[in-house]
């Protein structure tokens, strides 16, 4: 197990190197400069760029960047003087992480319950409505839902705060906007795998032993049905954390999603790089965690032998 984790982390480092290289060159390929504005003289621009080392050849810049990265230094923001990228992440990430994890946890519980309900209900009307609902919500983008929620609960009924201030009430709408898509996705996934597991032979045997319905459903069937879900949980958590950009800016939540969008607009190279590297790391780690969880649930998966 430990050997496997070390191996995966080593592979992660290689992945990160490619990510860094590609992002670095891509940001430099973007037209414009972080300091370019309409009324800046070429000499001032050149002086500013020289100040930040942007006058050096690009390959040299890349080596310098890698050196400072190895020391854990993601550099300073070009557009906001005196602010380091490390600070930006340290401030914004806890908010983004909290939002992402809360919405994912809610989606996991509700999605699983709805999925089981879809599989076990005897009423074809209920099943039809649940499937229609999940298809509908899987196709509504989070930002559309966020705006609708804002209009109804923030503007119309005035029961929830429009601006995010960190209070419990102000979490409700963003969490809801972020959770609806994964709820629909998880419920469809659980529905499919649960229905499959329900019709397996071991369920007949469990019934033949005289076990109660609850034990069969929650242990025998669900444990098998969760396997496909756990596999996709890693990428889904990563998506929940990284995919909240738009929702964050709609609700003016001071997370890293908003920083990301701003940094691309202002060509703030170091911030783009820093956030890309950071989120790449998050994705690599959540993927590893979900694979480990899979092995924990399914004894047949032998991590050391695989890959």
């Amino acid at each position, binding site marked *: 197990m430990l050997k496997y984790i070390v191996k995966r982390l080593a592979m992660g480092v290689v992945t990160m190197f490619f990510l860094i290289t590609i992002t670095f060159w891509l940001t430099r390929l973007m037209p414009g400069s972080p300091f370019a504005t309409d009324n800046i003289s070429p000499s001032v621009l050149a002086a500013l760029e020289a100040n930040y080392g942007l006058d050096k050849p690009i390959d040299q810049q890349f080596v310098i960047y890698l050196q400072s990265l190895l020391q854990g230094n993601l550099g300073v923001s070009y557009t906001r003087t005196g602010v380091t990228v490390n600070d930006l992440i340290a401030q914004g990430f806890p908010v983004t992480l909290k939002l992402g994890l809360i919405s994912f946890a809610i989606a996991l519980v509700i999605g699983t319950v709805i999925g089981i309900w879809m599989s076990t209900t005897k009423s074809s009307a209920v099943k039809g409505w649940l499937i229609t609902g999940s298809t509908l919500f899987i196709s509504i983008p989070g930002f559309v839902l966020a705006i609708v929620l804002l209009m109804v609960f923030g503007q119309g009924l005035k029961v929830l705060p429009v601006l995010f201030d960190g209070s419990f009430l102000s979490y409700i709408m963003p969490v809801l906007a972020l959770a609806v898509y994964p709820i629909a996705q998880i419920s469809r996934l659980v529905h499919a795998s649960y229905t499959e597991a329900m019709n*397996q*032979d*071991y369920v*007949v*045997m*469990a*019934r*033949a*032993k*005289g*076990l*109660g319905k609850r*034990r069969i459903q929650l*242990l*025998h069937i669900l*444990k*098998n049905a969760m*396997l496909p879900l756990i596999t996709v949980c890693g990428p889904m958590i990563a998506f929940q954390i990284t995919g909240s950009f738009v929702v964050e800016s709609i609700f003016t939540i001071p997370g890293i999603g908003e920083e990301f969008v701003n940094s691309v607009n202002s060509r703030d190279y170091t911030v783009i790089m820093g956030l890309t590297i950071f989120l790449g790391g998050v994705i690599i780690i959540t993927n590893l965690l979900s694979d480990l969880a899979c092995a924990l*649930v*399914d*004894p*047949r998966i032998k991590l050391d032998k695989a890959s």
Partner: protein
Amino acid sequence: MPLLEIRNLCVEFKTRGGVVKAVRGVSYSVEEGELLGVVGESGSGKSVGMLAVMGLLASNGHIASGQILFDGEDISPLAPAFAGNPKAYEEKMKGIRGNRIGMIFQDPMTFLNPVLRVGTQLTEGILCHEKCSREEAKNRAISLMKQVGIPSAEERFRQYPFEFSGGMRQRIVIASALACRPRLIIADEPTTALDVTVQAQILELLRDIAREQNTAVIMITHDLGVVAQLCERVNIMYAGQIVERGTLDEIFYDPRHPYTRGLLRSVCTHGEAGRQGLSSIPGTPPDLLKLNTGCAFMPRCAQAMKICRDYMPVPHAFSSSHCDVCWNDCREAADRVTAQESEG
């Protein structure tokens, strides 16, 4: 009083093509400690009948009519005691399944839950039927594993099904069926998925257990060799009906029904008899959606008469234990029916 008595059981499945009558009026009984074989081809209704007894039919199947008397008590969902109350039936069956009737399944690869430890799967049955601690259940499970011949049971208790070989898994399935010392074991082709040497071991194990604990066994199989090794009485089934029943000797040495004879001729033997070559029954089992009104075996039968097509044959007894259902064995009745028909 027989341990299990089935009276005129009919089981139907609703399918897209129409209603399939998988079991059509089957009656038989099993005595305490008796070893009964139920033989038939795939689709003859032998397994479905047993699943109906256990109340484990797939959701599109149901018992259309008949009684299932276990220990003198009707445990069919149609019994007056459960009339219109499926919950009461389910409650009743929960107390019987795994407790008083144990079931052994065909394929130990798919009938054990792949993600649960073998120990968990053995103890859960004990814990749900008997008031005992986890520790006691564990000790019981380990001694069961030893009883069915699993070496180093304490270690194996903590393992998962995929760590067992096919024969060992089938032993686990048997141990699970034995867990609460049931009075009846229904074994649904328990040796089909195993290789021949393991088959013999499993059959021996079943016979020893049945003798030791005076447990009745219903062995469902299509393998006459299995029946010859294990059973005392045999029912031959075809297209959802019992076509012949008798003791082992009566069926093997004095088969009467053309289908039974065909089955026996298609068994591979060595020595003098084997040199005559292997014969098979021509044709295929009937489509249960399109049965004629007469004998279901008629289209494949070498001795079929005109009457067989339109009229269901009546049972004919050769001894107190041996009877079959064929017009050839009750010619008088056949003549009467033919005479009546020509008059009318």
